[in-house]
């Protein structure tokens, strides 16, 4: 019976010659195996991506967290009238004076001043001298009095305290001599040197001295630049997107603008740097290294992204909303500004924040417009020279002092925190207002 059924079934299928039973059975197993494999690739890819991020963050935190702790020295300084000429307070060698006083306090033999004070001075920071001078300049009456000064210790000393310079290394290979190590231990045990949170990193501007170098200038510069960028990119970008998406007739010109904008979005950022250099600095004569130029260049760079993000969120607003408004007699402009734009706003904000965050981290074009120079002070206005966070990172990364390396990583952490906060804001905004049509 079974045989006849099988044969009759076989006959109904025109050219069937293979044994379908085994064919399907074989295939089914292989198909499920293929399914599992395919799935595994996906999991693997995700793991790789997450792993990379993990390593990246771990390495940076690992390198940078030490920079958030620093050591500073607090000492009484006698502003010795013998060594300071009241008529020329600038001319005195404060460093030498303070070093000698510290050495005296620590009981280093006086006869060694001449030979060892240079080495001892390397432990202390020149900041002590600056501070003494500053105090005297503010109040000349302090001359001959004792004042208490606190200042970060020299970078190498700091590294030593944090255990990053170990005694195991051959003396010649490290920046700290055995003698200095003894002194430093002494300073620490005497309580002159204390470890604490590195506020200098946030209150100081850039400096050639790693222990004095801070990010305040760069943060201010970045803030100013971002402000300029936002002020230009958002209105212009949203306006252009509105025009293209809502008002423009669909013709060759608007198609050209569209292609053009999509291209601009993918133009390498360094080309924007070249544009800024050639047009804003060389042709329009705007001030080099200024947040203004940087902001304008970044605004131009962010513009296409803002336009594209705006357009896509405008497009996500269903045409039925526009029709609805037009259908009850709203004008095109009213329909757009009363309904479409408000509905697209969360999307626009998300896109804008992300592109601003991107601009915040952008480095290459800023190098082109001369933002690589050393700027010790705070920028006074958008037209004065300034540094910005990413460039600061780049500069520090290139610096030779080892202490700058941890500060680079610390600066990166600061930058990343800003970026993550911005991105998170964007993500939250999207989650909060996400609307499915």
């Amino acid at each position, binding site marked *: 019976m079974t045989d006849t059924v099988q044969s009759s079934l076989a006959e109904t299928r025109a050219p069937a010659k293979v044994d379908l039973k085994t064919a399907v059975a074989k295939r089914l197993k292989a*198909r499920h195996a*293929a*399914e599992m*494999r*395919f*799935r595994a*690739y*996906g*999991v*693997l*890819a*995700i793991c790789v*991506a*997450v792993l*990379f*991020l993990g390593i*990246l963050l771990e*390495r*940076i935190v690992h*390198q940078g967290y030490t920079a958030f702790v620093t050591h500073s020295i607090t000492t009484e300084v006698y502003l010795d009238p013998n060594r300071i000429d009241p008529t020329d307070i600038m001319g005195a060698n404060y460093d030498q004076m303070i070093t000698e006083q510290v050495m005296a306090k620590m009981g280093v033999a006086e006869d060694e001043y001449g030979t060892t004070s240079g080495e001892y001075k390397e432990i202390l920071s020149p900041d002590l001298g600056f501070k003494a001078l500053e105090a005297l300049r503010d109040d000349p009456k302090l001359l001959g009095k004792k004042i208490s000064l606190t200042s970060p210790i020299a970078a190498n000393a700091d590294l030593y305290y944090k255990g990053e310079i170990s005694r195991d290394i051959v003396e010649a290979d490290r920046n700290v001599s055995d003698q200095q190590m003894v002194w430093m231990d002494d300073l620490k045990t005497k309580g002159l040197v204390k470890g604490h949170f590195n506020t200098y990193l946030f209150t100081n501007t850039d400096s050639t001295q790693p222990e004095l170098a801070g990010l305040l200038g760069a943060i201010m510069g970045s803030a100013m630049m971002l402000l300029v960028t936002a002020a230009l990119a958002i209105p212009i*970008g949203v*306006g*252009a997107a*509105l*025009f*293209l998406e809502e008002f*423009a007739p669909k013709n060759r010109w608007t198609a050209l603008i569209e292609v053009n904008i999509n291209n601009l979005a*993918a*133009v*390498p950022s*360094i*080309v*924007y*740097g*070249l*544009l800024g250099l*050639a*047009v804003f600095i*060389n*042709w329009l004569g705007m001030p080099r290294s200024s947040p203004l130029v940087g902001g304008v260049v970044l605004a131009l760079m962010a*513009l296409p992204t803002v*336009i594209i993000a705006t357009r896509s969120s405008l497009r996500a607003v269903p045409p039925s909303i526009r029709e609805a408004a037009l259908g009850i007699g709203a004008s095109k*402009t009213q329909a757009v500004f009363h309904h479409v734009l408000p509905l697209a706003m969360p999307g626009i904000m998300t896109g804008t924040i*992300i592109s601003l965050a*991107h601009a*915040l*981290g952008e*480095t*290459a074009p800023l*190098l*082109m417009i001369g933002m690589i120079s050393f700027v010790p002070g705070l920028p006074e206005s958008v037209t004065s020279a300034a540094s910005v966070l990413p460039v600061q*990172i*780049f500069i520090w*990364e290139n610096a030779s002092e080892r202490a700058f390396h941890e500060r*680079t990583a610390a600066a990166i952490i600061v*930058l990343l925190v800003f*970026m*993550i906060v911005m*991105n998170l804001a964007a*993500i939250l905004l999207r989650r909060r207002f996400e609307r499915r049509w």
Partner: protein
Amino acid sequence: MTGYLFLALIVFSVASFMFGRSLARRKAAAQGVRAHSLPAFSGWFVAIWSFIPAAVVLLVLVIFGARLENAIVQSDVPAAVQQLPELNQGLFFQDVRAIANGGTPSTTVYDGELKAAFDHKVAQARSVDSTINLGAYVLTAVLALAGGLLAYTRISPQFRARNSVERWVSVFLVACSVVAILTTLGIILSLLWESLRFFQSVSPLDFLFGTHWSPQIAMRADQVGSSGGFGAVPLFIGTFLIMLIAMCVAAPVGLFSAIYLSEYATPFMRAWIKPVLEILAGVPTVVYGFFAALVVGPSFREFFNWLGAFMPGTPMGEYLMNVQNQMALVAGVVMGIMLIPFVSSLSDDIINSVPQSLRDGSLAMGATRSETIKKVVLPAALPGISGAMLLAVSRAIGETMIVTMAAGLQAKTTLNPLDTVTTVTVQIVTLLTGDQEFDSPKTLAAFGLGLTLFIVTLALNLIAQRIVQKYQEQYD
């Protein structure tokens, strides 16, 4: 001063708005009709006419005032100054501007005839400046008043204020989109202009097909064949090599994560992994550069050195023992990591735009998920994905910071990933961040490279966008 004037203008415009609106209301009430436009539109109409013409004048003053002043001051150059070398003439006028406008002049000391000329010019500059400013201010005030008044008189219930205001809105929007065009024009013109100057000294053929790149040497005029140093082929090869390595990392990882996320992951997983990828995408390139230079570079070097130690004596072993931090592989891999979220989010979008109904259709026929993906979703998304890949390639080519920090400066014609190579973008950065004069072939070479870069990425983008657009039209 300009700032205050601007502020005053804004206040005036706000007042105009109020006046216009109330007038429209009163007129409509008096005539007992409903006006064509809401009163607010009349207000806007008056405000716009008060503001825009005046603001345009102010803006022109801000941008071109200084140039105009210069042109006037420099239109007649005193005889004493004419005798100065050309460079010093420029400096002279720079100092005049600095003194007149309250800046820091150079340390040059002018005396005698020059001193007189200098003082004269300073005085002239000051008067020109104040004249221009005064003129502009007066013009601004007049325009604001006249515009506002004129608009004010036109208000009536019959007046189509809304249409008029809306026209202004469109003008503003058009202006915004013109900025995008101007940007492109600016890029093309500035790159072309400077490149042309570069190609006056270096032949384009030598630049494009020359295999020797050493712009530093070319700096010195006494070197033989200064143009021989500008052969960019090694840069192109280096760029290509790094791009290739980057894509080898980014394409599979990015694509498969996108597939997994959009097809397999539970909503919960998506909610966690997507932000992770977004963070990866948000990390600035300078951070990747740091990562490459300080983490990946050394560990790769150690790895290869360790590997080399297993085959002592062989040339291979020798080579591996001597591998340096800065190699193409490091820059490529890190760039690949950077591109993973880029590739994955683009692919994710594209895979998601394949309608669910296609998946349902395939699943309902008894296909497994992976069969559905491989045979229906991916083929449908293929054009879009290849477009995305091209965009990633373009981004890899244009990426600067990673390669600047991790690839090296040595222009080598090699495809060995363990070798150090340099790229177009690295060279642009190095050429332009020195303290060179702005007219040397060395700095201009950067623009030549920039132009090449621009053209290549432009071509890639155009193709990619074409593909993606075609693809998206399919499912609209």
